[in-house]
């Protein structure tokens, strides 16, 4: 995954893309671009554009069968990043807890 995490944030910042990704996660099977176009009442061009951005962020996989392209969600990508963000969350929680104890014990002396 040679891209910046901002690619992932950007990919999910658009409501339509978020919806497409979400519905792919829910069906947990492949949907063709034609199906997505119908389901979301969007132009094929619009869907293709969103799909490409989601693929670039490794949020979905695209496979080509005959003349049709099929998309499947890849939610593990999101989980990895969530874990990573949680790691920094935890780091600061632990640090602030240390700071609090430090200030508390300094006061008592």
């Amino acid at each position: 995954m040679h891209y910046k995490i901002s690619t992932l944030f950007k990919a999910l910042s658009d409501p339509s893309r978020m919806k497409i990704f979400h519905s792919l996660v829910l069906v947990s099977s492949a949907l063709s671009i034609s199906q997505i176009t119908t389901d979301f009442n969007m132009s094929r061009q619009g869907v293709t554009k969103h799909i490409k951005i989601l693929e670039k962020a490794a949020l979905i996989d695209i496979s080509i069968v005959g003349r049709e392209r099929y998309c499947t969600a890849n939610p593990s990508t999101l989980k990895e990043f969530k874990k990573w963000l949680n790691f920094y969350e935890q780091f600061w929680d632990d640090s602030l807890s240390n700071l609090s104890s430090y200030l508390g014990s300094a006061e008592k002396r």
Partner: protein
Amino acid sequence: MKDTIQKEATFKSDINSVWNAISKQEEISKWFLEADFKAEKGYAYTFSSKDEGCEPIIGIVISADPYLLIYTWEVKGTNIETTVEWKLEAINGGTKLTLEHSGISNYAADTAIKMFESFSGGWDNCINGLTGFLGN
């Protein structure tokens, strides 16, 4: 999803005590990381850890006017600059701290995952425990 981590904490200590704890290198070294730090704009600081496998943190002090401390935060070797901001406010009976760590999405995906994997469960050891301090 947001790419800024924000934390709030309140302490019973007065604002100057908290300011000293976050901006004086002897104090930072006690509760956080071994610090080579000066609260002066432009100072290139280093936070390191005695433990192996903990990459030092390096950065530049951007602002150090009481009670706002801002510095860049780079895990050495990653070349990814993020920003850490500490803001203090005197409140009734103590001090309120607002901490913000921003720019986290600047990390490359593979670097982030590698970092996560190498530090997972490990950064606890990197932060200076209080045991040493309390034992003194």
